C-alpha cells in the first residue's frame, strides 16, 4: 500500500465517525491546501515534507515513524542519531535486520535504578 492510499484509508475511516475528517477540514488543520492533500491521497504527487507528515500523523492518531517510513523517509532525529555514530549504528542495524520483534524489544535501553 502506498503512503497516499494509507492516508486516504485512515482518514476515510475516521470520517465515517466524524465529519471533522473531511479532506478540507484535515487539510485546514495541518495547514495545506485541500487540493494538495487530495493529490497526496491519489498518489499524484510525492509524499509531503516530514513536518506535514508529522502533522498528519498527529491528526490521524498514527505513528509518525511508521508514516515517515511509508513515505520513504527517515526522520531528522533518527538521521542525526546515525550521523553521530555512523559505523556503530550501521553495524547494529545490519546485525538486527532479521531479528524477531521480541528480541528487538529486549534491546530497549532501560532507565538505570541505582542506590538511594
Amino acid at each position: 500500500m502506498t503512503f497516499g492510499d494509507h492516508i486516504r484509508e485512515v482518514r476515510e475511516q475516521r470520517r465515517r465517525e466524524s465529519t471533522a475528517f473531511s479532506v478540507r477540514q484535515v487539510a485546514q488543520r495541518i495547514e495545506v491546501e485541500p487540493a494538495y492533500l487530495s493529490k497526496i491521497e491519489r498518489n499524484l504527487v510525492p509524499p509531503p515534507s516530514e513536518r506535514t507528515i508529522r502533522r498528519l500523523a498527529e491528526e490521524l492518531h498514527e505513528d509518525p515513524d511508521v508514516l515517515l517510513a511509508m513515505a520513504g523517509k527517515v526522520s531528522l532525529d533518527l538521521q542525526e542519531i546515525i550521523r553521530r555514530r555512523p559505523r556503530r549504528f550501521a553495524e547494529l542495524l545490519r546485525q538486527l535486520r532479521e531479528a524477531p520483534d521480541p528480541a528487538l524489544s529486549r534491546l530497549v535501553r532501560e532507565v538505570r535504578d541505582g542506590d538511594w
Partner: protein
Amino acid sequence: MIELNRETLRFRFPEVHSEANCSIEFQRTLRIPDDNNSHPLPPGLGTFPLLHVDDFADRLPADWSRHGGVFMPMYQAEALWILFSGGYPMAVKVAAGKIDAISGLPFRNELTAKPQDYAVLPDQPWLDGFCVQEGLIRQFVAMPLGQGYTAEEQITGVAEHGGLQLVVYPMKAAEYERRLRPGEAGVAYADYGVAPQAVADMGLAPGGLMRQQIYEDEHGLDAWEQDVRSRCFVHLLNSATFRQVTGAAPPHEPPTADDYDRCGLPWFDYYDGDRETLAGAKPLARLDSVAARKVKEGEEPRTDDGGRPKQPRRILKLVPDRNLVREGCF
C-alpha cells in the same frame, strides 16, 4: 523495566502480564497562588524534557550517578504535575526528597496500607502535589535544596536527597484477570564543561492549595504483585544550568497564573464522587508553604505568591474517563 521514550517514562512488567504497563510524564504548569485559598487544577503546558543521568554523568554530581535514573530541568519556583496513563492497575509511590507525597512519612520501597502511601492507577489520572487534607493538595514547587523550603528539609531538617522518587508495582495477573480485565465482569475503566559540584540540586516544596482527591485503594494490599517493582529517581536540575550540562536550551519559563487567566484560558475541576478518598497526611498538613516560609524568614513573597482576589474565569469540569484531557495552551 523502565524505558525513557522521549519525554515519557514507560514502566513495563512483561513477567507479570503482557498488558502490565503504564506511563508517567511530568507536566509543566502554572504556579497557582500560594494564598491559602483552594484553587482548581491548572492546565498542562507540555512535558518536561527527561534525560538519562548516565549520559551526562561527568557533568552532574556524583550522587546523581549513584542514584541512577533521569533528570529534568526546572526553574526555581516552577511547578509540575505528574500524569499517569495506562489501563492496567498499578500502585504508584511518589516521594519528594524521600518523603512520601501521600502519607508524609519517610520513603520506603514497600507499599503500606495504613496509612496508604501510594496512588492507584488508572483511578488516579494525575498527582499535583502533597496530600495535605481530604480533597486538598499543596502544589509541587521546585526550590533549591539547602534553603529550608522543601518538604524533605521541613520534615527531616536535612537537605540530603532532593528530586522525586517513583516506585511502581503492578497488580497481580490473577487479580487483573479475575476482576478487572476490560470487557469482562468487574470495574470498567473508563561540551560544556560544568564542574559537577556547580550543579545546584533542587527539591520539591509545598506551594499553593489545590482541589484534588487522592483515591483510596479499593483492591487491597494483596492485589499488588509486591515482589515485582520498578524504581526511578528523577533528579531536578535548575534550568539555569541545564544548557551548561546538556548543551540544549531549557524550556521557556511558564506564564504566571494571572497572565494565563487574563487570556481566558481554562482551569479544571475533577471529581469522582463514587470513590473513597484519602484523608490527607498530618505531617504534610503541618508544612509551611513557600510563601508562608518566606514571610516567616522576613522575605518578600514573589508577586505571584500573594494570590488573586478573583476566582479563575473559566473552570472546566472533568468527569472520570480513560482519555482525560487537561491541556492548556499559551
